[in-house]
């Protein structure tokens, strides 16, 4: 049987984490191709419905990555993202979705290595959890 390749949607803020992911590229690091980046100006733009929508449409996981607390280009957008993330995790728990499928990380523009590590970890974790198949089973 072919190995399960999870599909993970990655919402990356343009100032920190998207730039950090770019740096992983320019530094020629290697990490699994399972995270698909969607660039947003700020993690504060991420509506929890984006995440639910991604999971119901076939994503096996969602990564949210933004600037470290205090480093937000827009002062405090990442705090909004963090609060929404905590609430969403509670909700996902209620519907039986493993909380490891949605992950929030602070990744700065210089933390290419952290980005690569997070992608690796998340891919492995979700590969073990198996496909989500939400929206297809019911």
């Amino acid at each position, binding site marked *: 049987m072919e190995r399960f390749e999870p599909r993970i949607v990655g919402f990356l803020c343009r100032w920190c984490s998207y730039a950090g*992911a*770019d740096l992983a590229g320019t530094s*020629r*690091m290697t990490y699994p191709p399972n995270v698909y980046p969607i660039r947003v100006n700020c993690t504060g*733009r991420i509506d929890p419905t984006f995440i639910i929508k991604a999971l119901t449409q076939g*994503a096996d996981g969602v990564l949210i990555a933004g600037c470290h607390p205090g480093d937000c280009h*827009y*002062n405090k957008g990442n705090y909004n993202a963090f609060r929404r993330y905590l609430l969403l995790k509670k909700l996902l728990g209620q519907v039986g979705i493993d909380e490891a499928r949605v992950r929030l990380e602070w990744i700065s523009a210089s933390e290419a290595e952290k980005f690569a590590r997070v992608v690796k970890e998340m891919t492995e974790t979700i590969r073990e959890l198996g496909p989500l198949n939400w929206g297809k089973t019911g």
Partner: protein
Amino acid sequence: MENRIGVYICHCGTNIAGKLDIQELASFASKLEGVVVAREYKYMCSDPGQEMIKKDIKELGLNRIVVAACSPQMHEQTFRRVLNEAGLNPYLFQMANVREQDSWVTGDSKLATQKAARLIAAAVRRVSNHEPLQIKTFGVNPAALVVGGGITGIEAALRIADSGRRVYLVEKEPSIGGHMAQFDKTFPTLDCAACILTPKMSSVGVHPNIELLTYSEVEEFSGFAGNFKVKIKKKARYVDPEKCTSCGLCQEKCPVKVSSEFDCGLGMRKAIYTPFPQAVPNIPVIDTENCLFFTKGVCKVCQKVCPADAVKFDDKDEFVEVDVGAVIVSTGFDVFDPSVAAQYGYRRYDNVVTSLEFERMCNASGPTGGKILLKSGDTPKSLAILHCIGSRDENYHEYCSRICCMQSMKFAHLVREKLPNAKVYEFYIDLRAFGKGYEEFYKRVLNEDVIFIRGKGAEVTNFAETPEEEGKLIVRCEDTLLGSVLRVPVDMVVLSVALEPRRDSNKVAKTFLLSRSKDGFFLERHPKLAPVSTTNDGIYIAGVCQGPKDIPDSVAQGGAAAAEVLSLIDRGKVTTEPEIAVIDEKRCSACFVCIRACPFNAIKFDEDKNVAVVQEALCKACGVCVAACPSGAIKQQGFTDGQIYAEMEGILAI
């Protein structure tokens, strides 16, 4: 109009083509919905690549473009320009990052090609939902506001005014000059502070381009970069500045004596007063809390003696409204009050003074005429100078105040000059002499018979243990070089106190929408690359209000902030962000969630229409309000829900 999309896949030499199957991707892209043409080329960003896109836009009538190449952070602007040159709105464009986030990081070619296909599909679906975006332009008012008339604000105001621009300089106190006016000598050159400051103060006072508003405060502030509105309260002086000739007779005859703030309480002033003789403007104010007329309804001596008939008891606060394009906040600092640290005996023992009080004592025009005196009127035979009082102390302020080491050594030198036989002790943790000429000054003081003790003064007491200690102040300290506890009896203790954020910093921060760092000082946009900018365009910070610094650094920042202001004024225009938030008035339920969520106060409430309104020039395009709006009434241009969903579907559909 039907979507006619062109997809362009870049080889980037072998950077992309070496890993991805470009032919397969081109054929895949050509079959996607709305795609009219899919091409590949060795270097899309090169001139022939750009020409290829322009030609297709014209000949095939393309109305949307996708480029699969490097990171958009690299070449998005390049390709937007291409669209613009071909007559297409530059925002009808999307980039798929198949280099930095695919070909360079993926080991397996097949998986990398699959990832690229999904990213291209996502970009095609997203661009199908793009709308043309417009950038708006606003003019810049060529006048500037400077808040705070210390050396930093003075420098900034003069720099801007000298270039021919109008400056409104607002100062809370009756005179400009700030803390520097209180100092005696300045380290390390030992220039007399007044000699270098007062000429600058006079220049400000007579400059045709500077409108000086002393004894005034900013009451209201609104607008955006290039177009701010400021309401300034001019507090009643009770002296007509037009008539007053600064003869000083009123101050001489006023019967009320109160302690002088300028002299840190060491000297007295009258109820009608100028803070110091070289004040600019040299127009007195009446202190209504102490004036006999205002407290008891009698006296009016000042009015009677004034030869110019300038005293007017019916004076009222006045409000002035001005429009400016840019603002510099240079509100300076307060000094740490060491009475909260009871171990140092400040206010308990007569001869424990702060560094600022000692400055006044050393100053030739100060309360003691420049003599260092004990409360009894005698001359001290020994002095201890304690560094880091309130700074580098986790109980008060963690930060280093940066000026105290040099200031303390300057004091030692002044004592040596004024009292050649007195013993001087410096109690320090580390000596930080980092500026130009500072280390040299330290060396000089080392050779001036000053006793340096490495150890922070722990306690000042008058509890004598030996006959020699009787009647003295005893400084207790652990000498960390000797590893022993010392008791040093002295006549006078000088506490080198920390520089602190102004006590009204919070109010100032609210007025000008500034952020504050952990230590309470105003926060710059970037600690290295944007030291005087703030996250709000058109608002700059300079001097100690941004963090402790000495006079050279404060002056440098004042100049830097002035340069920022002049650059904005000379640019002459400000543009809006393309990706700003837009509120659908019909769906707005007036819940105020977006107004509270906006980090830039860019959303105002329209009372008449009962809806929230985005002020386009203030919006920085973060999208926080969009995600927060419970009614779904706000959309972010260029990042609409529809566009993000489309991108997601592209990733997940195949």
